[in-house]
């Protein structure tokens, strides 16, 4: 299972935890596991068509999946997945 870090702004949807251990061998599968467990995240992370919303960046081991294989980016059990929307505060 990979470790998925939840941004502070979304933690209320996952019971306040900072990270979750989730199944899945691709980003699509990992995000699917996350949304299955916490359905309120679905509309925040994914478009109606099932793509990642463009305002949420997803990194696997520090690399942006947009420049890997997007939702099809492979995820190994020890990998760290990080969801990251932009922050506004200054």
């Amino acid at each position, binding site marked *: 299972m990979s470790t998925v870090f939840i941004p502070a702004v979304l933690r209320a949807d996952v019971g306040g935890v900072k990270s979750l251990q989730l199944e899945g061998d691709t980003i699509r599968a990992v995000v699917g596991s996350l949304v299955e467990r916490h359905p309120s995240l679905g509309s925040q992370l994914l478009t109606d068509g099932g793509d990642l919303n463009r305002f949420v960046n997803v*990194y696997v081991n520090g690399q*942006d999946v947009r420049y890997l294989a997007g939702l099809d980016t492979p995820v190994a059990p020890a990998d760290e997945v990080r969801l990251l929307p932009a922050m506004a*505060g200054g």
Partner: protein
Amino acid sequence: MPRSYADLLREARAQVPEVSPQQVDALPSGAAVLIDVREASEWEQGHLPGARHISKSYIEGQIEGAVPDRDTPVILYCAAGVRSLFAAQTLTEMGYTDVASMSGGFQAWKSAGLDFETPVVLSAEQKQRYSRHLLIPEVGAAGQARLLGSKALLVGAGGLGSPAALYLAAAGVGTIGIVDFDIVDVSNLQRQIVHTTDRVGERKVESARKSINALNPGIKVVPHEEMLVAENVERIIAGYDVILDGTDTFETRYILNDAAVAAGIPVVHASVFRFEGQLTTFIPFEGPCYRCLYPTPPPPELAPGCSVAGVLGVVPGILGLLQATEALKVLLGIGHTLAGRLLLFDALETEFTELQLRRDPNCPVCSDAAVLARAEGRPLTVDGVRVEAPFLMPMTGFGGAVAVPGGTVPAPATPAPPGRTVAAPATPALPAAPEAQA
């Protein structure tokens, strides 16, 4: 047995190879480290181009910092070629393997008609004020003079801008512009340390100016008491060497990004949320820009500002200081900035995480196609369809949404399919639309 000065000099000459000024002048750039071992007052009268100054009195203590590798070729010089012989002897004793002394010193160099540089001379007050900078080889008098001649723009005199303003002023960044149209509120003072309780109700730019000049009266503060919008951004940022983005709205961040990319000005970006912050440095065309990182802003509920979500006061303090650090490095041209890296800070875990960023080849602002379209004064198009992106600046050739009075008419909304190459075909530019009211 006592030895005379003449004995010591003879021994030094026997031990240390000497090179003539002409030989030094003929060396390819970077072939050897040139060190001027005269006193500071002599250095200030002029020195060899590219030389570093380490007074003979400090040579033992400072040489390892300046030349860490003992096999690096080093050439020392002084005024007439004697002090440098003794200093070279010392370096040889310290294990430096390739040390020479320039015969005849700076006098012979000048007599040969060779070029020399005259360093910027700081005033006595400046030398005292910035003495801890002057001791750092990477800054020194030349770096301090560079800072004094630099211009930094703070967009926002809030949580991020406050510490940055104070430290940039303390560091001697000669001109500090501040964009803020707000007034000081008592709820700001939990983190916005450039303001004070007795200035509640005062304009933030004026309050910040007072604090900056109280700390360092030599700093010129340029107040821009207006909201940064598409219509004024180019005017406001013109002439600045670096910009610190400390705003709290996405619209301002995108507008600033677009204009800074077009103007080629680096932007040090930071943003905060409760216990966490993000930081990076955008160097136009060398690394990604804000739109490469975040093509689209999140909906408001996913990105509340500090006034809605709250923030631990020290978090913008830390991020603002890191912004100031990045800005100083950009201005001095030293170290490695965060260009291409996003630094995340989590105060609750006291944890820093680094993510890799890339330039988006389809970026509507900094991609090659976008640059070409802008240069030709026409909108960026993908397969003949105008690119749509949030808050794209109107009237600047960036394309995107067309602003009209009373609202914004979106450009044809056909997003580029994934993987499609952005092109800038020579389509006729759309007629310029009047600017929207912000």
